């Protein structure tokens, strides 16, 4: 067979399979066809009609095995669709008095391990708690006799929203009203701690009664290979639709409620303009990924004006020019704000997005502001100061505690997995609060800038978790463990501790195999104990977590690496010279494991490098400081590449390196790095942030070593000004700062006196 023959066969075959038997006969009777071709086509048609004639098709079948006629109480009626995840069937079950129809999803990916099946069960129950008229209810689920997981969802008859709106020729205002309904449903789910992760027009239906129904809420997470329970989970890309994936999903970064805000922005764009913002890049996955991660989408109005799509405009009861005019301004801004690349800079919640749409519809000014060049330059000021407010807020709450620990440790920054990067902490907390309570911790409300208020939020949520999940110890323990982490992130260790203890003991007592959960809770509790200074108890628990994880997982594994890192940190804290060799072995093993897992430049690998450097600096044996310098320089280069020069984490590293160089007597290099760290902290966190004071303090120390007393005094005064702003009046730091300042003044006076008493003395020395 040559290519021409194949082309002819496949084309004719494609026509023939669509035809009736009679049509086929007359087509094949065409005298223009070679008899050989006709014979081949007849054989192909016969083979096509045979259902699975080959044994290998059974063994290698790309489709699922044919489903049983009945799954649990459900009779399968017919196939509704097939997708990457599996098949969707229309099924029914008899219920007292009526027959309920459901959409039954059979999931392609088998849940091969007991652990995954168990987590599938937990997630399913979390989803079953969602009950909102805009969300197709999850009714049931389980594993069928063949071991294939299934979910039974409310069956919704309707058409995809964008398609339905076009068919109905809905105008902009009607479309916006429907969009508000979609937002309300998504907001409800967020308030129940469920992120959709795969919002797209195909999952948003409009019923004949013109009601919006969202399908597949949280299903993407249910299908996630690891079913991680923390808020900031990553979704494997194959489980989302590339055209509707967010920049963070494409980058494999944590998925949060902000991911759904982005997807809603895409939906709004399509609803308003009839096309997706990156449609011209959809030719290849690589091009699409590149565009989504780096290109600013065209404004909605420009997209309409550029394409001049008359059909799309007509479907909106408009003309291309009039539609572009209607979109220009506020609607452009709303879409663009939802579609920002950085999750932090989008609408802080779905509710905020919906509010702006409502304001626009009411003819009132919206809250979002278009980006301007000056805005981009000032990045952290203006209205969007509030968006960064949460990071600052959390940092403030942490400040009294972590700053102290930092200076105590000789100005060296250690990093802990369980505490994660500050930004992640802030995001997890704000997502949680915003969505659980509808409150917005980003708001510039002074009452909210107070840890008592935030604490109250957490208390309320604890009460609801206890009330609603009474009798469901497994899920309750999972949420209590999360509350423990949130309290811990806020520095509320006395509240974090009993919750962590409770979660751990509940999980230990549960029947069945919960070793992974026990390890996680042991890890959380150990972190709290460590912060409270109970190092031996913390060490015991970290060791337990490590042992459990080593027994559970093959190496290399992310959780084992985390445990190695945490155990090493506590050993460094215990500062037991006799165990330095063990600590070093743990550090090296953890670092190597992360390199194997993630490569050299990954956030976690860099964190391990940083921690190893901190260990070496503390031990300060022969060659240790030189090795530490190499490690820190690699960390700095890696982080600058990934995060940009203005990131607070980059500044942390610069400051660590500067301290080391100062210790090595290389003051000029140290001073330059301190300046760089101060600049980056100021740019990212604000010039008045306690971290800036930390940098200034380091700068002061290095300047003092060079004898530049005037510059040293200037740095110390600036640090004191910030500390005075953030620390309570009697804080020991302020006393230290003032005492050092007094000493400086005395030294400066003395120097001046010496200089005037003996001119030229400085030169002769």
């Amino acid at each position, binding site marked *: *067979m*040559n*290519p021409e*023959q*194949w*082309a002819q*066969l*496949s084309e004719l*075959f*494609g026509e023939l*399979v669509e035809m009736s038997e009679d049509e086929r006969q007359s087509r094949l009777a065409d005298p223009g066809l070679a008899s050989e071709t006709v014979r*081949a086509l007849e*054989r*192909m*048609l*016969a*083979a*096509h009609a*045979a259902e699975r*004639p*080959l*044994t*290998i098709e*059974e*063994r*290698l*079948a*790309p*489709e699922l095995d044919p489903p049983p006629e009945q799954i649990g109480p459900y009779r399968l009626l017919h196939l509704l669709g*097939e*997708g*990457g995840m599996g098949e969707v069937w229309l099924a029914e079950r008899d219920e007292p008095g009526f027959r309920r129809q459901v959409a039954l999803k059979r999931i*392609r*990916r*088998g849940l*091969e*391990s007991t652990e995954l099946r168990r987590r599938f069960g937990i997630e399913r129950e979390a989803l079953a708690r969602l009950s909102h008229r805009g969300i197709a209810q999850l009714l049931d689920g389980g594993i069928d006799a063949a071991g294939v997981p299934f979910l039974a969802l409310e069956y919704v008859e309707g058409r995809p929203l964008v398609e339905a709106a076009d068919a109905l020729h809905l105008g902009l205002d009607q479309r916006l009203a429907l969009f508000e309904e979609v937002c309300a449903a998504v907001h409800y789910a967020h308030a129940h701690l469920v992120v959709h992760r795969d919002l797209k027009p195909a999952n948003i239906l409009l019923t004949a009664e013109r009601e919006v129904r969202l399908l597949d809420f949280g299903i993407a997470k249910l299908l996630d*290979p*690891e079913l991680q329970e923390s808020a900031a989970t*990553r979704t*494997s*890309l*194959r489980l989302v639709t*590339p055209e509707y994936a967010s920049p963070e999903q*494409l980058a*494999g970064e944590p998925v949060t409620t902000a991911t759904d805000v982005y997807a809603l922005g895409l939906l709004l764009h399509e609803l308003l303009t009839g096309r997706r913002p990156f449609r011209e890049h959809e*030719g*290849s*996955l*690589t091009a699409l*990924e590149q565009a989504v991660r780096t290109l600013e989408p065209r404004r909605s109005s420009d997209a309409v004006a550029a394409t001049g799509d008359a059909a799309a405009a007509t479907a909106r009861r408009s003309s291309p020019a009039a539609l572009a005019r209607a979109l220009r301004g506020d609607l452009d801004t709303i879409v663009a704000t939802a579609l920002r690349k950085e999750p932090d800079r989008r609408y802080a919640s779905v509710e905020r997005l919906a509010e702006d749409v409502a304001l626009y519809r009411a003819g009132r000014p919206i809250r979002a502001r278009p980006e301007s060049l000056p805005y981009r330059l000032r990045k952290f000021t203006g209205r969007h100061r509030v968006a960064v407010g949460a990071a600052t807020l959390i940092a403030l709450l942490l400040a009294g505690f972590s700053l102290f620990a930092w200076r105590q440790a000789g100005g060296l920054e250690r990093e802990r997995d369980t505490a994660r990067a500050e930004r992640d902490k802030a995001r997890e907390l704000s997502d949680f609060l915003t969505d659980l309570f509808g409150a917005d911790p980003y708001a510039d409300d002074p009452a909210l800038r107070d840890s008592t208020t935030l604490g109250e939020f957490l208390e309320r949520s604890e009460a609801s978790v206890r009330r609603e999940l009474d009798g469901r110890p497994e899920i309750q323990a999972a949420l209590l463990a999360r509350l423990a982490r949130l309290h811990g992130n806020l520095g509320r260790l006395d509240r974090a501790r009993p919750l962590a203890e409770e979660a751990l003991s509940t999980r230990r007592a549960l029947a069945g195999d919960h070793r992974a959960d026990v390890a996680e809770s042991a890890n959380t509790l150990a972190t709290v104990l460590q912060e409270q200074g109970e190092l031996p108890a913390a060490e015991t628990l970290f060791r337990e977590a490590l042992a459990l994880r080593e027994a559970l997982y*093959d190496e*290399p594994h*992310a959780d084992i690496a985390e445990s190695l890192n945490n155990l090493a940190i506590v050993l460094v804290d215990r500062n037991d010279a006799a165990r330095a060799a063990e600590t070093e072995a743990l550090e090296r093993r953890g670092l190597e494991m992360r390199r*194997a*897992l*993630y*490569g050299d430049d*990954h956030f976690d690998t860099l964190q391990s490098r940083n921690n190893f450097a901190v260990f070496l600096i503390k031990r300060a044996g022969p060659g240790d400081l030189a090795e530490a310098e190499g490690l820190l320089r690699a960390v700095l280069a890696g982080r600058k590449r990934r995060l940009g020069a203005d990131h607070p984490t980059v500044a942390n590293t610069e400051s660590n390196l500067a301290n080391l160089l100062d210790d090595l007597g290389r003051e000029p290099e140290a001073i330059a790095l301190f300046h760089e760290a101060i600049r980056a902290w100021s740019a990212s966190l604000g010039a008045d942030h306690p971290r800036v004071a930390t940098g200034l303090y380091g700068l002061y120390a290095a300047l003092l070593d060079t004898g530049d007393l005037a510059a040293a005094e200037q740095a110390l005064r600036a640090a004191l000004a910030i500390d005075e702003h953030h620390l309570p009046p009697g804080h020991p730091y302020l006393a230290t700062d003032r005492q050092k300042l007094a000493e400086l003044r005395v030294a400066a006076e003395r120097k001046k006196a010496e200089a005037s008493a003996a001119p030229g003395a400085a030169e002769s020395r």
Partner: protein
Amino acid sequence: MSGAVTLWLQRLGEGDEAALDELVPLLYDELRGVARRLLRGERPGRTLSTTALVNETYLRLLEARRLTPTDRAAFLGVAAVTMRRLLVDAARRRLADKRGSGLPALPLDDLAELVAAPEADAELVALDAAMATLKSASPRAHQVVELRFFAGLSLEETAVTLALSTKTVQRDWLAARAWLRAEIAPD
């Protein structure tokens, strides 16, 4: 080792055909590791579907961040080739043993055992020959079949992986499947 998978996938993506020969054995090791992990503690005699195996391996690599999402298409293509070679080789060896080829009966390695389909050995060997013919006539249809049969991809996934429309994939698939069936099935 794992870093090498990513590296070779990149090379393959850049059009370096030789990378395929480097990748198959590497991927083979990954597949075997995943198969062992999946079957740990399971009852003996259970076999895995190629679909489950390839999906698990992909998810594992992706999760461990050794693969980037853009490597996916290349990965699935190579996985399909690897699975095909593995299955066909195993089938050839079993058939040779049965015929008493005089060669020492090589123990099949564990991965081949796990995805073994002895009842389909003759078909697999015939399929391999028919696939070679198909490849010379239409490399695209050949790829579609390889991804669907040996990596277990759905129509949609195949379309995304090959950057083709679902319609094109469907047309190639139906025609190629019918042709292969006609070619292999004893008349």
